[in-house]
């Protein structure tokens, strides 16, 4: 018997590194089903509304989705094998302040002491909206939008200028922290109008929450000027201390056999 757990970690690492394929242009060997979750109900309506109610089921009676900046979990019921949660997504969710200072330090992937990161972050210290400006910078700086890169540090991303939502989020978080703004990464899904020929499907995604101006604010550097908070569902926070932190792994292995339905 060899490395069952090793293989799981290799797969998780691969999926974390290339978590989002929201800009996947070419068909991969990997089936499209590996990147998407179908949305049931009148899915097109989500694009016309500011807040959305979803019902979500998954095969773990104990796991509860986190509260996040754009989502409130309003109900959780479970039987022996499954959970059902009701979610409201969109603006207007006030997230507890917590201890934002916890999200200021370096990690192996957020190498904020790196001179290139420090130098780049210093440019935003006088910005009136550094979260927006850093997001726009990262969007423009990563010119080679591609997926499938294993998890790498922010300074390497800054240098390589390629990646998908994972690289966008790591670099954004590192620049924010280096600029003195607490920031953290969120993993989940985003509703795409079209992905690899499929309409109105959730695609795995990563984004950022930053603590600025006395509150948590939302940042997505893959689309800094086109954010619709009701289209995101958060599964877990990723500490970026290691490639596959235990709580992140718990979320991904708990969230199996998921269905997501829009509630009218």
């Amino acid at each position, binding site marked *: *018997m060899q490395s069952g757990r090793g293989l799981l970690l290799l797969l998780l690492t691969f999926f974390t590194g290339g978590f989002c394929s929201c800009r996947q242009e070419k068909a991969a060997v990997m089936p499209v089903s590996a990147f998407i979750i179908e949305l049931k109900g009148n899915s097109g309506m989500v694009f016309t509304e500011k807040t959305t109610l979803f019902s979500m089921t998954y095969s773990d009676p104990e796991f509860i989705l986190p509260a996040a900046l754009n989502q409130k979990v309003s109900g959780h019921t479970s039987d022996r094998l499954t959970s059902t949660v009701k979610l409201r997504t969109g603006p207007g969710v006030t997230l507890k302040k917590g201890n934002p200072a916890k999200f200021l330090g370096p990690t192996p992937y957020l190498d904020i002491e790196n001179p290139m990161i420090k130098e780049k972050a210093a440019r935003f210290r006088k910005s009136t909206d550094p979260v927006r400006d850093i997001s726009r910078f990262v969007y423009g700086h990563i010119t080679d939008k591609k997926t499938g890169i294993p998890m790498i540090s922010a300074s390497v991303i800054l240098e390589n200028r390629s990646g998908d939502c994972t690289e966008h989020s790591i670099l954004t978080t590192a620049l924010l922290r280096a600029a003195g703004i607490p920031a953290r990464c969120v993993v989940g899904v985003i509703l795409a109008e079209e992905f690899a020929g499929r309409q109105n499907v959730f695609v795995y995604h990563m984004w950022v929450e930053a603590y600025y101006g006395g509150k948590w604010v939302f940042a997505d550097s893959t689309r800094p000027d086109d954010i619709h908070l009701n289209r995101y569902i958060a599964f877990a926070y990723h500490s970026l201390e290691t490639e596959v932190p235990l709580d992140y792994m718990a979320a991904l292995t708990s969230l199996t056999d998921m269905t997501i339905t829009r509630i009218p």
Partner: protein
Amino acid sequence: MELRRIIPVILLLSFLSCGKVPQSLTNGEWQYDLIVNGVRAGSAVISNCEKDGLLVSRTEMFISLGTMKNTTTQTVTETKEFRPVRLEVVSTLEDSSSGSRQVISRIAEFNGNNVTLDSDGKKARYTLTGPFIIDGNFFTDSLVKGRFREGMEIRAKLYEPTVTADKTILVIVNAAGRENVTVRGKELKLIHVRQRVEKLKSVDIYLDDTGVTEKMVIKMLNNIFEMERID
């Protein structure tokens, strides 16, 4: 027939009906398909050997995505008593569109409970608490010694820097008896082993009578990842 005479007969019959179980660690090299949601998405090679008096286990995984080709190799070196010596994970990323190649490595070297972790040239040192193993042959050896008895459970603390760099994590392995499993379109009667990290969901592993993995099934998000032996 008296009960005391029946019991040995039942035991003998149940033993015979179970088929053979692996008698020792198996050395060799095996090829696999990686299947995602029923579609072949990559390949893997797993090998076990003895080198310079040490046990060396290697897992290589190949996955392509668009123009990106990702090869990840994990090499585990341990003593015959399963004391950790070295754990190496190297990912090579090749992009056919730009011709670029990137190598990302992590090497942990052990001296008792002290570990030196080298991540792409950045070194860190940690002292771990209590006995621990790395992802080699400890569980297989324990299952062999327990003759893969259905219901047996083995627990060990494992060092896995992909999860935590400065602590060990609990891994639990259960022998779950024999099951009919479809591999390469054929139904085989295989030994079922469940492996899990702490309270997380388990990976299902199916072994043949010599202890070689025939199939592995992992569920994560809405995906089913399978590894099926092809040689």
